[in-house]
């Protein structure tokens, strides 16, 4: 059924470098309209990097990234500006603007992109804060909020424009289980009511299994697996199982190379 749906995110052969080091090694992925796609992986898997490229924050070495039918690796700045109106992003640490109130934070995208009446903008921003259970908090400064509240306020800002694409970086990192469960519920509600396509990057298994329609497992810059929750659970791939069972990865050790690293001696002099 999925294959018949429109792909609103289409990534092809994405290769990226950080300095000399290759981070993503040719990633291809489709995300369908109205789908919640969870991108999972341990630290160093490249999942955060992948998100940054999906957001158009960096130019890849090669490959293409199509969002809503437009290749953002080719798009000019005006085109990108237009496209950004349809994207919302909630960053890991919230990234609220500390010099503005919570309400002003949520209003900023609306003030930047629309010419709506002030009254409309204010009601909209309060509506979004109500959605994330922060009703009445619009006059507070971000510094006065707890960690969970900052995350929810950031989500309110991300959905200020009713975006078609919502990106969510580590929704449950650093939150207590109750608050993180609430956020998961909220993500599901948003998709159902507003028909958003949602990409969530996380390393939290429980949260991933709860909200995902499909899961992409990244490992060391490669996609190990794309599949439904069931398919991921039942995968016989060892790295996937390691990740699910929280097993540390076991690498085969090359004794000579290991000695060379420890003693900082070139391999041929050992």
């Amino acid at each position, binding site marked *: 059924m999925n294959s018949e749906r429109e792909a609103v995110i289409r990534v092809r052969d994405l290769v990226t470098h950080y300095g000399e080091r290759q981070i993503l090694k040719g990633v291809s992925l489709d995300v369908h309209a109205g789908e919640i796609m969870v991108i999972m992986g341990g630290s160093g898997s490249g999942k955060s990097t992948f998100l940054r490229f999906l957001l158009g924050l960096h130019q890849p070495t090669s490959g293409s990234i199509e969002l809503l039918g437009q290749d953002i690796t080719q798009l000019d700045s005006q085109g990108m500006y237009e496209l*950004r109106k349809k994207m919302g992003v909630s960053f890991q640490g919230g990234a609220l603007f500390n010099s503005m109130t919570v309400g002003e934070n949520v209003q900023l995208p609306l003030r*930047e992109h629309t010419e709506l009446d002030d009254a409309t903008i204010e009601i909209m921003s309060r509506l979004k804060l109500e959605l994330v259970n922060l009703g009445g908090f619009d006059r507070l400064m971000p510094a006065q909020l707890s960690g969970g509240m900052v995350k929810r306020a950031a989500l309110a800002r991300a959905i200020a424009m009713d975006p078609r694409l919502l990106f969510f970086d580590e929704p449950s990192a650093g939150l207590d289980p109750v608050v993180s469960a609430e956020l998961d519920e909220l993500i599901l509600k948003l998709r159902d009511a507003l028909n958003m396509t949602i990409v969530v990057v996380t390393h939290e298994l429980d949260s991933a299994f709860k909200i995902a329609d499909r899961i992409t497992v990244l490992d060391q810059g490669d996609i190990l697996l794309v599949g439904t929750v069931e398919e991921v659970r039942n995968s016989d791939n060892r790295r996937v199982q390691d990740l699910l069972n929280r097993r540390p990865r076991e690498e085969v050790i090359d004794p000579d190379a290991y000695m060379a690293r420890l003693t900082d001696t070139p391999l041929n002099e050992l």
Partner: protein
Amino acid sequence: MNALRGLENLGRGTVRAVEEVGYLGALLAESLYWLFVGPFRKQPVRVEAVFQQMRQVGVNAVPIVLMLAFGVGVMLAIQGIHTMKTFGAESKVVIGIALSVTREFSSLIVGILVAGRSGSAMAARIGTMVVNQEIDALRVIGINPVRYLVAPALVALLIVVPALTVLADIAALFGGAVYTSLDVGISLAAYAQDTADVLTVDDVMQGVNKAFVFAVLIALIGAANGFGATGGAEGVGKVTTRSVVMSISAIVMADMLFTFFLTR
């Protein structure tokens, strides 16, 4: 071997310096782009932000500028009278004070003060925003960080630094007058008359023109260091210090070149 490594380091340092200057140039070009082209793309530079910066950078700095400039005026008077005594020409000290204040000291003092107060604040503010991903957040909302943060500060500094320089001129001349009148016994009115006789518009403009250049240097160096911040609070502290040292050095070097070409 060591010589080779030294040469290599020198080369690398040079490349970095050239890159850095290139980056400052790019920042300047981008700021000017948003100032002039932004309004036509419905992405103007916010006027409120300019005023807010002007208040922080300018108005709040007025008391300290007045105090420092007054002190510089007094200092110049003391040194001038001491030097002129040798020739028995104490009354000629007025010319020395008038010219060195307007052509040199006012803009330099204001430049260094603003670099220390506001250049560092800008580096710290932008650096904190980088570290907190606020810059990323601006970009994904579609707000260009240079347009939003750098261009308003640049405009504000371009207005405020020359204005503070003129203010400093007045305070320093007054400081010089007060000391001279007490020590040598020239009345304030006579001092003012003498000063008006020797000063030309060119003298004042030399200081003001320098102030424009200093404003650009402070804004760009503060912003560039801020954007370069990495690694948490410590990183922000590092770029803040770096921005102060760099902008004061740049101001002194620019001043030297300026004086060389304009005075000869």
